[in-house]
């Protein structure tokens, strides 16, 4: 039960508002403040001088809902201190920060980002692909260095049309990527945990076979035990010397050391990466390569996505506290 000197509780009326625990502010809160959650009483753990376990033991025993960013691992230890927890709302597109089996065991519902970010992430994937194939960032560097003269030709790029694009993970993001690239004349093939009966793209049951038939691999899946280092040396060799890898999922889906080796040894033609295994660290070999495009994990970081996420979070919390179905419940874990 909230107490008068509880962080986040400043007036008598807020005792009636439903409580939402926030361990660390998600990006939307850092950018927009928390006025969009005025209908809730926020328990802001990070504002307390107490260590987390003490704070939770004292203040969060009856908390039913938790709002969390993607960077904060929700471990078994934290869950043990939240006996009343029924809902986690995450602002991250990925779920790898959540101990899913433990949540399932406890029967705690998870409201994901849904498809709020999907367009922006798909745009980033396509942007990175065009950049790698047509050498946009490399050419921009070339011009700004004053190297352009009509006698020496800037190296030619590679055409998008007819490229076989293998999408790894055909969820909301993967489908938005596919829809965009089809308009460029790319041929879409995919692998996913399950075949999608509603799409006509050819399905591959494993990523190695997908890579063997692809010119480009775009990683659009989440990070799980099964997908960790799924894109390994064999997959990259199968993709081939003209192959390009685009990663807008999680860094650890790709064996990063192997990726660097393949690029250094020209077993791969190029890569476009928004995510890395050990952010913000980027392997130094990549920092001087012209055939890679590097992005600092920002596929969702547009004002449009973040504003939409505020509404989405609010909508999920409202639904939960009025016993209505969540907007974006995570179903099959």
């Amino acid at each position, binding site marked *: 039960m909230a107490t008068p000197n509880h962080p986040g509780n400043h007036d008598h009326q807020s005792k009636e508002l439903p409580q939402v625990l926030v361990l660390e502010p998600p990006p939307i809160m850092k*950018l927009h403040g928390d006025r969009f959650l005025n209908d809730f009483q926020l328990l802001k753990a990070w504002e307390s001088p107490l260590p987390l376990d003490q704070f939770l033991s004292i203040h969060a025993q009856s908390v039913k809902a938790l709002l969390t960013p993607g960077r904060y691992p929700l471990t078994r230890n934290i869950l043990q201190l939240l006996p009343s927890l029924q809902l986690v709302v995450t602002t991250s597109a990925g779920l790898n920060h959540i101990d899913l089996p433990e949540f399932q065991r406890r029967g705690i519902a998870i409201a994901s980002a849904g498809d709020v970010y999907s*367009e*922006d992430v*798909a*745009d*980033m994937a*396509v*942007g*990175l692909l*065009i*950049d790698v*194939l*047509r*050498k*946009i*960032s490399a*050419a*921009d*560097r*070339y*011009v*700004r260095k004053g190297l*352009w*003269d*009509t*006698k020496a*030709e*800037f190296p*030619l*790029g*590679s*055409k*998008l*049309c007819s490229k076989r694009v293998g999408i790894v993970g055909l969820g909301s993001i993967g489908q938005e990527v596919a*829809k*965009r690239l*089809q*308009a*460029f*004349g790319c041929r879409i093939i995919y692998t996913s945990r399950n075949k999608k009966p509603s799409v006509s793209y050819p399905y591959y049951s494993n990523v190695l076979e997908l890579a063997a038939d692809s010119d480009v691999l775009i990683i659009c899946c989440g990070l799980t035990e099964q997908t960790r280092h799924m894109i390994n040396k064999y997959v990259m060799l199968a993709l081939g010397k003209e192959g390009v890898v685009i990663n807008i999922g999680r860094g650890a889906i790709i064996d990063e050391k192997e990726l660097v080796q393949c690029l250094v040894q020209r077993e791969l033609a190029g890569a476009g990466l928004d995510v890395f295994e050990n*952010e*913000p*660290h*980027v392997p130094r070999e990549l*920092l*001087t390569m012209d055939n890679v*495009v*590097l*992005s*600092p*994990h*920002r596929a969702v*970081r*547009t*004002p*449009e*996505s*973040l504003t939409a996420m505020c509404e989405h979070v609010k909508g999920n919390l409202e639904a939960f506290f009025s016993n209505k179905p969540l907007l974006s419940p995570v179903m099959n874990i």
Partner: protein
Amino acid sequence: MESIGVLMLIPMNTYLEQELQKRYNLFKLWTAPQKPQFIKEHANSIRAVVGNAGAGADAELIEALPRLEIVSSFSVGVDKIDLAKCREKGIRVTNTPDVLTEDVADLAIGLMLAVLRRLCESDRYVRSGKWKKGDYKLTTKFSGKTVGIIGLGRIGMAVAKRAEAFNCPICYYSRTEKSDTKYKYYPSVVELASNCQILVVACPLTEETQHIVNREVMNALGPKGVLINIGRGPHVDEPELVSALVEGRLGGAGLDVYEHEPEVPEELFGLENVVLLPHVGSGTVETRKVMADLVLGNLEAHFLNKPLLTPLV
């Protein structure tokens, strides 16, 4: 065929050069220490000129080549060729339409994404080590933004088709309204610019379309608007473009072409809201080969008295 003289104006493609060398008596103008002398010396054997977006057969050159029969351009744009003079003298002209449409349209979308999502700038951010100190700032969403196209020809339509896949509403300006399209038409470029967020130049360069994007248009596009030029440099009033960008009256630009290539206004080098490319619209291995084969095919057809593949004149 070896005695047929072909004048190539500037280096443009190694494969094309090698093939021309094999089939004809190839004169490479850029290797000449004194160009007018070189032309005079070989004028009597030159029956074909091969140019590209950067160099074409102007009136002076045409006059200097009395035996000229055909100008074959390694480009789709022919603004560097004096078409009227060619018509007057019965000289055939060919270009390379269709084969480069997709590449140019792909690049237009690539430029839009690169400018709006700051791809080049954030790549620099990572390479310089700045990510270790903090996140890169927010960049604006591309999907759903209204795209305005100047010129709804092959390239314009291809840009529209791609932008539609990003849920972008499409509008356009053209010399005349097109009856067979669902896109919204505006009768002037200023009105088009006032009603879109991303303006793409995709029309041919003619006397009428010189500086079609001027100060008024750029002001109408505005501080959140982005200009994408995949046409020709002279479509845009370049000094006005520079001041509009520097002063913040225009939100950003993605440029593949400039008024005086390869010169690029240096004031643009320090701006993070521009992306600068060295005229690579059709610059893929695949397309340049197809373009080269089209040039070779047109020349072959001409000298065998067969119908030209892609004649303009």
